[in-house]
């Protein structure tokens, strides 16, 4: 049982890192970016390429994946995404789902449809058992939790302590007012988009071992990202974090206790949850109007 909770937390943490960028994008520009998972996939494949082709050690490789995906995000934001902010949600959905399909097909063409494996360094393999098997902690999952916890603390600190964080929060609250206060909302958004994409890439790099990595990744996990944002809301870091943890625990627990139904439990739970509170669990608006 404790093992289950541990695995669920690791999974939830991973989902948070993968989805937090999407939450900010949505909160900041009211932009529905269904292609967020494509950045995660890119991070995963880059890590595979760095470690296996170029012989880069694992930790520098995921850092490189973070930077490279962030860079790609910044470029795409400037070239493709920016004209889309003012468009209808339908246009945004068409645009970004199109991007997803292109990334899936292109990855399939470039590297093939087989699952990719990440070779973990020795110190991340194996697991420690405590209390006669009551709690088994995989070292890699422990590593994921540690990295994600650091990131959460870091993000929280950036948001609440720095000048950029204040600007970002002001822009999320009301972009028009923020622009009136002399904040360059466009630049805030570019930077946030790049960091959000980079985090997705990092999540993809970290998660390849746990979630699996093949060209259908952006489609397979799309609904999970959307759940984190829909349930967690876009007004804080803690909302999506709690939503992601909840989702991770529910998914791991559901698949363990009722393997026959698989992901069914999670979907049913989430739909019921959003029936109850259509604006998410942690939105400021309360139980909806």
């Amino acid at each position, binding site marked *: 049982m404790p093992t289950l909770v541990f695995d669920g937390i690791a999974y939830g943490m991973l989902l948070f890192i993968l989805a937090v960028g999407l939450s900010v994008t949505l909160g900041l520009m009211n932009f529905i970016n269904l292609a967020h998972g494509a950045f995660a996939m890119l991070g995963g494949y880059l890590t595979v390429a760095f470690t296996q082709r170029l012989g880069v050690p694992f930790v520098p490789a995921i850092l490189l994946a973070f930077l490279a995906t962030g860079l790609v995000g910044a470029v795409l934001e400037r070239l493709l995404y920016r004209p889309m902010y003012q468009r209808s949600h339908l246009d945004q959905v068409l645009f970004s789902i199109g991007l997803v399909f292109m990334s899936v097909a292109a990855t399939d063409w470039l590297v093939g449809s087989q699952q990719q494996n990440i070779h973990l360094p020795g110190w991340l393999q194996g697991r420690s058992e405590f209390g006669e098997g009551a709690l088994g902690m995989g070292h890699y999952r422990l590593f994921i939790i540690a990295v994600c916890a650091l990131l959460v603390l870091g993000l929280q600190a950036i948001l609440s302590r720095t000048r950029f964080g204040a600007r970002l929060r002001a822009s999320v609250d009301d972009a028009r007012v923020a622009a009136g206060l002399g904040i360059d909302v466009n630049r805030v958004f570019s930077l946030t988009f790049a960091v959000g994409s980079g985090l997705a890439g990092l999540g993809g790099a970290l998660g390849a071992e746990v979630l699996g990595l093949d060209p259908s990744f952006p489609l397979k996990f799309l609904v999970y990202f*959307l759940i984190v944002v829909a349930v967690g809301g876009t007004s804080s870091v803690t909302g999506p974090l709690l939503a992601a943890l909840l989702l991770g625990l529910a998914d791991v627990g559901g698949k363990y206790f009722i393997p026959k139904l698989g992901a069914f439990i999670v979907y049913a739970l989430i739909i019921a949850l959003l029936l109850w509170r259509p604006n998410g669990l942690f939105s400021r608006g309360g139980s909806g109007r």
Partner: protein
Amino acid sequence: MLLATDRWRERLIVGFLFAVAFGLPWLMPSRALFVAETASVALFALSLDLVLGYAGIVSLGHAAFFGVGAYAAGLFAKLVMPDPLTGLAVGIAVAALMGLACSLTILRGSDLTRIMVTLALSLLLYELANRFDAITGGADGLQGMAMGPLLGRFEFDLQGQVPATYALAVLFLALLLVQWVVRSPLGATLLAVRDNPLRAAAVGIPVASRLAFAYAFGAALAGAAGALVAQTSGFVSLEVFSIERSADVLLMLVIGGAGWVYGGVLGAVAFKVLNELVAGITPQYWTFWMGLFLLAIGLLGRERVLRPWALWQRPSTKAVR
């Protein structure tokens, strides 16, 4: 549009096009199955038009109702009785009931929540169909349904001429029905709700029940489309619930123009023909070209990509926002 009384030209054109379509399976027997499939997905696109074009609900999981209709009709034929029309009615009824129940989830919440919930619903059904493989056949698909003769007289032939005629007839009737409804006073209130729900409520229109109606009606027609595919192909696979299918139908509707009764049908025909052509050249990478097309439509705007020559179609697709 709403108040127009003179429709003879429109009737003439639609009548002529359908006459051609009905002739196709008999003139080109090798293409009969293609006609049957195109008619079925055209009905699917028409059903999404009710949801997106007339109720303004962005859905990424409309395949849920299509799939439910397909499995309901397939299982009914396999386990209960082989009569196609009864099976069609069952498919419609099951999908409509589910649509009505699910309308609760889309009445409240933002576009993002709606996209997520509709997507989750189709995935949920995918999981269900996959796990209960004893009934549904799981990943192997539902096989072994033998269809009875249509109206007790016309056997479903392997070449697909009777199935194609059957699918076209159902599409034609559905089109008449939808046209009838969207031009009625009720349809007018639907347009009002789509354009401005705040104002619609402020003039006394019950917004929630109108949205629920449009959603359930759309679900029923999607169920009919799914039932047609199951019956005319004699096979249902898990793919009926896939996100690709939801995205396909969204693309079809956008190609043809949402908020216009013929948009879905024209878009479906264009999509299927394009699919045949491109898939003939690069079968694997159809997804890529479809993605590029979606991206271009989103980026450049529907009008500019699809109708650069003229805006001959009266209700602008821009109305769907």
